[in-house]
């Protein structure tokens, strides 16, 4: 049985919190609910971005997802380094 949208969202946030690397591929979220269609997982991930709970990280050719608290923007990182 597929999870409800809210359960799936919770599982995805948990995954993004606990994963060793902060940035995750969309496919890494598939295992949060193996019964869900990839397209639904993608839509839920994008909803979480809209809600501000996840953030896109893009190399320009690939896009990944991360918890805002776990990825630092290049610019905030620079600022942090300068204030050191």
């Amino acid at each position, binding site marked *: 049985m597929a999870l409800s949208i809210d359960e799936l969202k919770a599982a995805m946030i948990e995954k993004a919190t606990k994963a060793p690397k902060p940035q995750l591929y969309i*496919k890494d979220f598939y295992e949060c609910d193996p019964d869900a269609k990839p397209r639904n997982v993608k839509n839920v991930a994008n909803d979480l971005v809209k809600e501000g709970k996840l953030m896109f990280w*893009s190399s320009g050719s690939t896009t990944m997802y991360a918890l805002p608290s776990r990825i630092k923007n290049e610019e905030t990182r620079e600022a942090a380094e300068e204030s050191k």
Partner: protein
Amino acid sequence: MPKHDTPLLDELEKGPWPSFVTDIKRQAATKPECWDILGQVELSYKDRITHWKHGGIVGVFGYGGGIVGRYSDVPKQFPGVAHFHTVRIAQPSGMYYSAAKLRAICDLWQKYGSGMTNMHGSTGDMVLLGTTTPNLEPLFYELTHDLNQDLGGSGSNLRTPACCLGKSRCEWACYDSQALCHFLTNHYQDEIHRPAFPYKFKFKFSACPNDCVAAIARSDFAVIGTWRDDIRINQAEVKAYIDGKTPSNGGAHSGRDWGKFDIKKEVIDLCPTGCMWMEGDTLKIDNKECTRCMHCINVMPRALRPGAEQGATICVGAKAPILDGAQFATMTFPFVKIDAETEFEEVVEKIEKIWDWWMEVGKNRERVGETIQRVGLPTFLKVMEVEPIPQHVREPRSNPYVFWSDEEVEGGFERDIREFRKRHAQ
């Protein structure tokens, strides 16, 4: 921002050809950060390594594509390019726009960016090079509200679809590539603006096999116009070419005297499938052997035209070399009707079948062409519910093994191994 010494780059201004170095210097007159582009590129030439870092979380609200974060890895030396993000703007179908629209976009970019552009990028988009994070939202607001232009795709999104100018100007167009491109751009807005896939996915539309947008080399889903019946021949016009009354190739080779037009040498002998011949004054074509290469039609456009029963061939899986080598798209759907009346349902159905499969089976950062290569074309054709035909075979067999699946063999593969061993000792 000071000028830097750029002896290596200055070499590139010496030829008779246009030079990007000269262009950037000219732009630096109004946008001094451009001196830092030159300074950083000079350093890269010296160090033989790029000093651009790419990637990051920059973007505009609600969009997961269209802005590509670019940063200098030597920002203290070149503060003008510390942030130098790229903005992709969706180009209109067939790249038709007014000079007024281009001026407005350039003015907007002079206001919010470096003024440097790349028209157009390989994806097809108009590419605006170099701005800072705080400028992104105001730029996006004016772009969408005042200029009615949208961002294009980047990252793991559907990339900005691109098409040839097709029926708007070209007599060879076998379907309306602009209409299909425009329709699918609207239909898949979500996939263009937000990531959806294991990796990038590109559509390109050429309305005939001349393939002016190089769809077969550059797109995961290449829709290339073709015809199913016979090449239409006007024998009187064939004669006019033979008699030298009509210049071949629409007069494109008239700059030099190539001698008298020779239909045997220039057309018949160059037909890749050898399916043309003359019977007296009459040109004959064995159409079932024709591969639609367009050569004869390109040489004698007044005499030969694509057939009247038109549609498209869909090829899947081209890519540039990143993980594996470069590859062309593989012919998958030999003939598809391109029909605006049904909202292109035959095309949409195939796109979604590919996406559903690839989103499931494709690995991270694997283009669909690599997925097909990994599982093999027979598996892909089965998933696409396409009957294999000889045209799906790329080369003669070099592999002596033939595999049958269970359901292809009468009685299946079930057998009693003990029964078998009685007759066949181990």
